[in-house]
């Protein structure tokens, strides 16, 4: 089956006065039709830049410097700006953290929706208005008929985000990219919005790329998760595997550092020392190596590839069956922690 979205070896560069920064470095992932892929990582990991690169809206001077982006098998990274404008809204719907970035404050909600539908569909204005109202009902706007003539500022934050969801789905896109769609909302409203995005996209078979720093949101919403670290893929796999059997030392540490509502509160929360490097200061070898308890010789010199481990893929030498093997003590520690080391064990140091 052709992936709804396929990102292959994506490289995004940002030229600055002090040199060219590599914001995304050799990133590949697929999203299957109807699948929800969560994209997680700490702030600055490159989540938003990845989303912007896909929709062709990188802030200058950022640029796609390598790789391919395919939407249902067709390349879209080399399209003209006007062809890309056609794809945005029609084939890729977008939901951002701040609903006001997607809504024009001076237009009535109903007009904005109707106009979007008319841009992408050859139907009468009346049919478009009816569809707009049906969408507002579907996203849970009370009294949708009368609310059509309200302006964005007349809605609460949660209601506005519902309108944005209606707008994103108005042209029945094959992919929705949602960048931190609930981060600005109250906890009790977050759950409503997540449930809504999940239900509507499931009903329509729409694929979703859900970008968030909140692992709880991902755990409850995504089918698969892609973990980014310093602009590189750390691990990708099914949500249960990544949360419960993380294979990359970074993901492993991240999951253990997140307090939960049902774990034992007396159990230790692990901490990862240090913090993610800035783009200009990514260390040689594995980007995570200065913070990693398992690092060994080659981690400081070579950049790990992507290695299969169980049903996941992880970018860590512990899973590389060829090349320099980790010392026996490292292998033992990793196995004790629940990492399925695939590298053969080296000699005792």
């Amino acid at each position, binding site marked *: 089956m052709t992936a709804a979205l396929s990102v292959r070896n994506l490289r995004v560069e940002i030229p600055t006065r002090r040199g060219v920064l590599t914001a995304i470095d050799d990133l590949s992932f697929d999203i299957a039709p109807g699948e929800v892929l969560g994209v997680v990582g*700490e*702030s600055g990991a490159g989540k938003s830049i990845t989303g912007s690169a896909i929709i062709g809206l990188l802030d200058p001077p950022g640029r796609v410097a390598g790789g391919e982006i395919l939407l249902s098998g067709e390349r879209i990274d080399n399209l003209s700006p006007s062809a890309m404008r056609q794809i945005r809204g029609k084939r890729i719907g977008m939901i951002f953290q701040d609903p006001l970035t997607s809504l024009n404050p001076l237009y009535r909600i109903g007009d904005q929706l109707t106009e979007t539908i008319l841009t992408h569909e050859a139907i009468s204005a009346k049919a478009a208005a009816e569809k707009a109202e049906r969408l507002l009902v579907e996203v849970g706007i009370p009294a949708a008929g009368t609310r059509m003539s309200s302006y964005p500022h007349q809605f*609460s*934050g*949660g*209601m506005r985000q519902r309108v944005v969801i209606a707008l994103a789905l108005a042209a029945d896109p094959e992919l929705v990219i949602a960048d931190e769609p609930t981060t600005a909302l*109250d*906890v*009790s*409203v*977050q*759950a*409503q919005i*997540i*449930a809504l995005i999940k239900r509507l996209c499931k009903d329509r078979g729409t694929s979703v790329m859900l970008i968030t*720093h*909140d*692992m*709880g*949101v991902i*755990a*409850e*919403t995504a089918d698969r998760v892609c973990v980014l670290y310093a602009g590189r893929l750390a691990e990708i796999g099914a*949500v*249960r595997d990544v*949360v419960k059997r993380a294979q990359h*030392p970074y993901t492993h*540490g*991240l*999951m*253990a*550092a*997140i*307090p*939960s*509502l*049902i*774990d034992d*509160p*007396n*159990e*230790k*929360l*692990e*901490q*990862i*020392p240090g*913090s*993610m490097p800035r783009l200009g200061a990514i260390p040689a070898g594995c980007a995570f190596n200065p*913070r990693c*308890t398992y690092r060994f010789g080659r981690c400081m010199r070579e950049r790990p590839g992507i290695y299969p481990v169980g049903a996941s893929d992880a970018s860590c030498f512990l899973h590389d069956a060829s090349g320099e093997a980790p010392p026996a003590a490292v292998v033992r520690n990793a196995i004790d922690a629940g990492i399925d080391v695939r590298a053969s064990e080296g000699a005792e140091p």
Partner: protein
Amino acid sequence: MSVEALSRPRPAHDGTDAPLVEIVGLGRTFDLSKRWLNRVLEGSGKVTLTAVDGVDMSIRRGETYALVGESGSGKSTIAKMVVGLLPPSAGSVRIDGVDIWKELGGAEQRQIRRRIQMIFQDPFASLNPRWRVGSIIEEPIKAFDLITDKRERENRVGELLSLVGLDPRDAGKFPHEFSGGQRQRIAIARALSSSPEFIVCDEPTSALDVSVQAQVLNLLRDLQERLGLTYLFISHNLAVVRHVANRVGVLYLGRLVEEAPARTLFSDPQHPYTKMLLDSVPDIDMTGRERTPIAGEIPNPVNPPPGCHFHPRCPLRFEPCDKVRPPLKEYGQSRAACHALEEGRVSAHRD
């Protein structure tokens, strides 16, 4: 990874049972009206917002009391009144028996203020970018005249930096040279410099990434054990609260709706709001769960619903709920403000 335990802090007992902090009937309103002349010209009336409304709570020595609530529920306003930054409109805050808002002799007031410090959410905004780290940390020492000798003060700053896991040589650097987590360590060192007993932490890890959040939570717990600190820990993150608190108070639109020992609150919540909040928080250990999000949104605080503020969103509401404010009453180890609980319409304890 360095595996420092983050287990529940144990309250340090010093023999006395009197609470360190006693808050009675605390309230704060804000005047949102336009200026008087505009009001007259535009015919608009006076608008007041009640940010905090009759909050009673007490914090024991050595414990971590956590206040949770969604944004706008009044957490930061309470924090500011408790540390002495914002005068209350009603009620009192007593620290070790002394009312911090009553006119006191200057010396007594200063002595009390020295014993209270605060850590803010945003480690970027709370540190003066033009000051070196050393000056930032020693500022409270100077303000309270604690150490007059310059060399001695520098030594103390070095000790404090080591205490929070930084290098004494960092004193000569500027805040922008540090990451978010390191800046929060600097803010903690500053808060500790006047040797306080009580620290109010307002969302201390909300601006940090999770891998760094665990470092700061571990540090706070470690310092509590070593220095016998008492914390008022404010957060909107229930999972974090569950990991740090001994007792938890839940705020909704400026009112305390429930208070209980942490264990009890999370295993046996009483108030319908607490129950629904616990059910709606996205959680890493609950992949694929089906749930019922709370209906509706937080109402406008300028015009909160009458009676119980939660009634428009409450599945248990009945006659008195939209008329009478429910009093905070005891149910086993918990206190909760709910008419349905009061009338026994829901079995208070799950046993």
